[in-house]
C-alpha cells in the first residue's frame, strides 16, 4: 500500500514531540511490511533517515516553472531530492504561482519551524501539496497535526483519495481552554474533511468528539510508543549530587503544570532534606517559576539548568531518581516513557494520555500536590519502591513498540479503503 504523509518535523531536527512520534510511527509501519510511505516535510536537511520512507521537502517542490538544467538542479538540491523527481514535479504545476515569492528553482522557502507567519507557511505548504498529489501515485493520505491538515485536504480534493488525519494535540491542550479561533477552525476543518481520525489517546479522542463535535465512529485511538534507545545512550553515567534528584523536563509552559511541581517540591523539602529538584527546559513561565521557588524559600535546592537537547536530556535523566510530569493536559506525553527507558521511576498526571497505557508509574491528579509530594517522598525514601518501579517500568516500556502502533494504523487504512 502506498501512503502519502504530511508532517512538519522529522528527526534529527525536531522541536517537540511531534517529530519523534511521526518518525516512530512511520518506521513502525515500515516494519510491518508492504508499506511504501512518502513523507513530506517543509524543509529537510539531508541527514534524515531515508531507508523506510521517501522524504520530500516542500521547499524543493517547484510551484512555478523555471527553465533549469539537470546539472544545475543536481548541484542545488541533489543532496535532498533527485533531479528526476524535481522535473516530474515541475511537469505537474497546476496554476501560475509566479506572483508568489519563489526562488531560482521556482520553489517556496520554508523555515520548517514555528515562525510568526506560521499561517502563511501552512498555506504555502498546502500549495506544494497540490503539486505533489498530482505527481505521485498513492492510495491514502495521512496528515500529522493541524499544520498539515490543509495540505491533506488539498491532496484529497485533487485526487479523491481518502484522508486520515492524526491528532497529536489540539489547541485545547495547548491553551488550557482559551483556544485560538484560527487554529480551531483549521483543526475542525481537517476533522470534518477527514475520512478517519487517529488520536494519540482516549483523552484526545474525547476532546475531538466533544469539543469539535465529531462523529465518534470515525475517531480511533492509537497510542504512541517509543523507539528503543541505543546502548551508548543507555550506558550514560552522569555524575550526580549525593542527594536524590527529582526532575521535571519539558517546556515550562502553562500546559505542563510547572507550578504544581514547585509546590510539591516545597512540601517535600519541608520534611526531607535529602532531595534536590531540577526543572530543566525553557518557556514563558520560567521566570514566574524562579520567583515562586524563591518565594517558597527552596531556591537553594531547586535548580533551573535551562533547555536540554539531544544527549543532554539523557544525561539529565540518568542523574535523576524520580521523573515528574505534572501536565495539566497532555495528549500523550512521550517523556515519561523515555525516563522509564533510562530506568527512572516516573510520576505522571492522570490528565496525560500516556496514563491510559502505563501501569508501573505513579499517577496523581495534576492539582493534587499532596499526593505528588507523597509519591516523590516515597520513591526517594523507600528503596524497594524505586527498584520495583525501575525494573517493572523498564520491562513494561520495552513492550510498547511502534510496530504495534503501526499495525493499528495500517488496519485503519484497510478499513477506510474498504478492504
Amino acid at each position, binding site marked *: 500500500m502506498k501512503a502519502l504523509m504530511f508532517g512538519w518535523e522529522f528527526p534529527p531536527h525536531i522541536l517537540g514531540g511531534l517529530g519523534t512520534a511521526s518518525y516512530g510511527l512511520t518506521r513502525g509501519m515500515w516494519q510491518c511490511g508492504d508499506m511504501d510511505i512518502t513523507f513530506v516535510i517543509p524543509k529537510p536537511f539531508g541527514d534524515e533517515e531515508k531507508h523506510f520512507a521517501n522524504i520530500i521537502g516542500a521547499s524543493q517542490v517547484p510551484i512555478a516553472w523555471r527553465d533549469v538544467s539537470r546539472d544545475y538542479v543536481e548541484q542545488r538540491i541533489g543532496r535532498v531530492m533527485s533531479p528526476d523527481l524535481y522535473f516530474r514535479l515541475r511537469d505537474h504545476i497546476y496554476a501560475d504561482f509566479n506572483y508568489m515569492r519563489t526562488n531560482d528553482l521556482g520553489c517556496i522557502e520554508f523555515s520548517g519551524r514555528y515562525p510568526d507567519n506560521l499561517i502563511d507557511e501552512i498555506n504555502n505548504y498546502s500549495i506544494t501539496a497540490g503539486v505533489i498529489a498530482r505527481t505521485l501515485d498513492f492510495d491514502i493520505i495521512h496528515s500529522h497535526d493541524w499544520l498539515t491538515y490543509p495540505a491533506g485536504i488539498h491532496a484529497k480534493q485533487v485526487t479523491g483519495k481518502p484522508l486520515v488525519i492524526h491528532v497529536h494535540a489540539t489547541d485545547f491542550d495547548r491553551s488550557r481552554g482559551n483556544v485560538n479561533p484560527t487554529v480551531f477552525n483549521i483543526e475542525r476543518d481537517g476533522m470534518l474533511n477527514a475520512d478517519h481520525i487517529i488520536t494519540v489517546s482516549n483523552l484526545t479522542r474525547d476532546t475531538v468528539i466533544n469539543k469539535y463535535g465529531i462523529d465518534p465512529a470515525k475517531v480511533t485511538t492509537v497510542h504512541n510508543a517509543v523507539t528503543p534507545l541505543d546502548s551508548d545512550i543507555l550506558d550514560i553515567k552522569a555524575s550526580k549530587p549525593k542527594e536524590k534528584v527529582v526532575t521535571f523536563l519539558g517546556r515550562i509552559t502553562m500546559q505542563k503544570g510547572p507550578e504544581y511541581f514547585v509546590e510539591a517540591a516545597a512540601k517535600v523539602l519541608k*520534611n526531607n532534606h535529602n532531595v534536590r529538584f531540577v526543572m530543566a527546559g525553557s518557556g514563558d513561565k520560567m521566570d514566574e517559576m524562579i520567583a515562586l521557588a524563591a518565594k517558597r524559600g527552596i531556591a537553594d535546592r531547586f535548580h533551573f539548568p535551562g533547555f536540554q537537547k539531544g544527549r543532554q536530556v539523557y544525561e539529565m535523566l540518568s542523574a535523576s531518581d524520580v521523573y515528574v510530569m505534572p501536565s495539566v493536559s497532555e495528549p500523550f506525553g512521550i517523556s515519561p516513557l523515555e525516563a522509564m527507558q533510562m530506568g527512572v521511576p516516573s510520576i505522571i498526571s492522570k490528565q496525560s494520555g500516556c496514563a491510559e497505557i502505563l501501569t508501573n508509574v505513579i499517577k496523581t491528579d495534576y492539582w493534587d500536590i499532596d499526593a505528588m509530594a507523597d509519591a516523590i517522598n516515597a520513591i526517594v525514601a523507600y528503596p524497594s519502591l524505586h527498584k520495583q518501579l525501575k525494573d517493572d517500568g523498564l520491562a513494561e516500556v520495552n513492550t510498547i513498540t511502534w510496530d504495534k502502533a503501526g499495525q493499528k494504523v495500517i488496519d485503519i487504512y484497510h478499513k477506510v479503503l474498504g478492504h
Partner: protein
Amino acid sequence: MKSICFYFQIHQPMRLKRYRFFDIGNDHYYYDNFANEDILTRIAHRSYIPAADTLLRMIKDSGGAFKCAISVTGIALEQLEQYVPEFIDRMQALVATGCVEILGETYSHSLASLADPEEFALQCKEHDDKILQLFGTTPRVLRNTELIYCDEIAPQILAMGYKGVITEGAKHILGWKSPDYIYSAADAPDLKLLLKNDALTDRINYHFSSDPITADQYIAQIADTPAEEQIFNIFMNMETLGETQPAESGIFQFMEALPRFAAERGIGFITPSEAVDTIPAVASLEILHPISWADEARDTSAWLGNDLQREAFRKLYSVAERVRLCDDRRLKQDWMYLQASDHLFYMSTKHRADGSIHSLFSPYESPFQAFTNYMNVLADFIVRVEEQYPLSIENEELNALLTTIRNQSREIETLNKELASARKDIDHYNEERKARATKA
C-alpha cells in the same frame, strides 16, 4: 459414610486512611473509619446476616444433621461488635445449636507464622481468648491466615494445643493424591490435616452465577466419587454467600436445599473437630514450602511476591520484639491492625486473573499507592516504638533492664507489704499497751 465439611471464613481488615508522609510524627490515628464501617455494614447485610440466618434454618430444618465450621478474625470481631452487633447475636445462636464449630486463627489475620513464631503463638492465644469470651468455646482446630501451612510450623501448632489444621489441597503438593482424605503432618504425626477440595469449592465460589448448578447435581458429584473418599472439604469466604455470588443468583436457596439431597444420597455433614477425632489419617503429607489458598500459585506470593511487599513485611516484623516488650495499649492495638496480611495483598503487582482479584479488594488505585501509604503509617508507628525504647539499646540489654525494673518493683511491693504488716503489729501492740495501761 461420606461427609461434607463446610467452613466459612469472615475477615475484614482495618483499612488505612490516606496518610501522607508529612503526617509522620504528627498524626497517630491511621484508620479510615468511614470506609471500614461502610464496607462492613454493606457486606454484613448482603452476606453475613442472611448467610447466618440460612445456616441456622438449615440446622433446624435438618434436625441438627447439617454442620459446619466458621472462623472470624479478631479484627473482624472487633468491627462487628462495634458496627453490626446483631451479627454477633446470630453467631452466638449458631454456636448454641452445637452444630457450628468455631476455628482458631491469628487475631489479626497476619503472616506471623512466616516471620515470628512467638508472635504467631501470642496471636492464636489472643484469638482463642476472644472466642472464649464471646462464644464460650475454645477452638481445637486451627485455620492459619489464608490457609497458610508448611511442615515447619506444624510442631508449633501441635504444641499450642490444636489437634488439626485446615489448609489448601494444592495441586503441586498433592500430585496424584486426593484431598478427600485426612492426612497427617510430616513433622508432627499427631497433627491432622484437612485439605480443601478445589473443584467443589470453586464450583460454588467462582462459577455459581456464570454456570448455575442445582443442589441435586452438586450432591450427585460428591456421591459419585470412589467409595473410599470420606471427607469433602469445602472452604470458602462467608462473602461467597450473598456478595461474590449475590442473593439473586439463588445461592441461599441452593445452600438450603443441600441437606435434603445429601440425606437422600446418604451423605452427612461433619465439623473439622469431629473429622479429626473420628477419621484416621491415610498418610503423612510433606509440605516443604508454605502453601495457601490465594492466587493461581497457591503459595505466599500474593503477599510476599515482590520487593515492595517483602520490604514492608521485613520492616514491620523488625520491631516485633520491641512492641512485645512495651505495654502501651494503643501501640499494641495498632501493632495488631498493621499486621493484617491485607495491607500486603494490596501491594501485589500481579497481572491478569490474579491481579484483578487483588485490585477488586484493594481500596487503593495502584499497588504503589498501597505501598506508599502503608510505609508512611509504618514509619510513624516505628517512631512511636522508638519513643518508648530508643533503638540504640540492644534488645537483650533492654530486656535485662526491664527485668531489673520488674524485679525491683516486685521487691518494693514485698517490702511495702512487710512494712504495712509491721506497722499493723506496732499499732496492735500500742493499742494493747494502752488497754493494759487503762486497766492498770
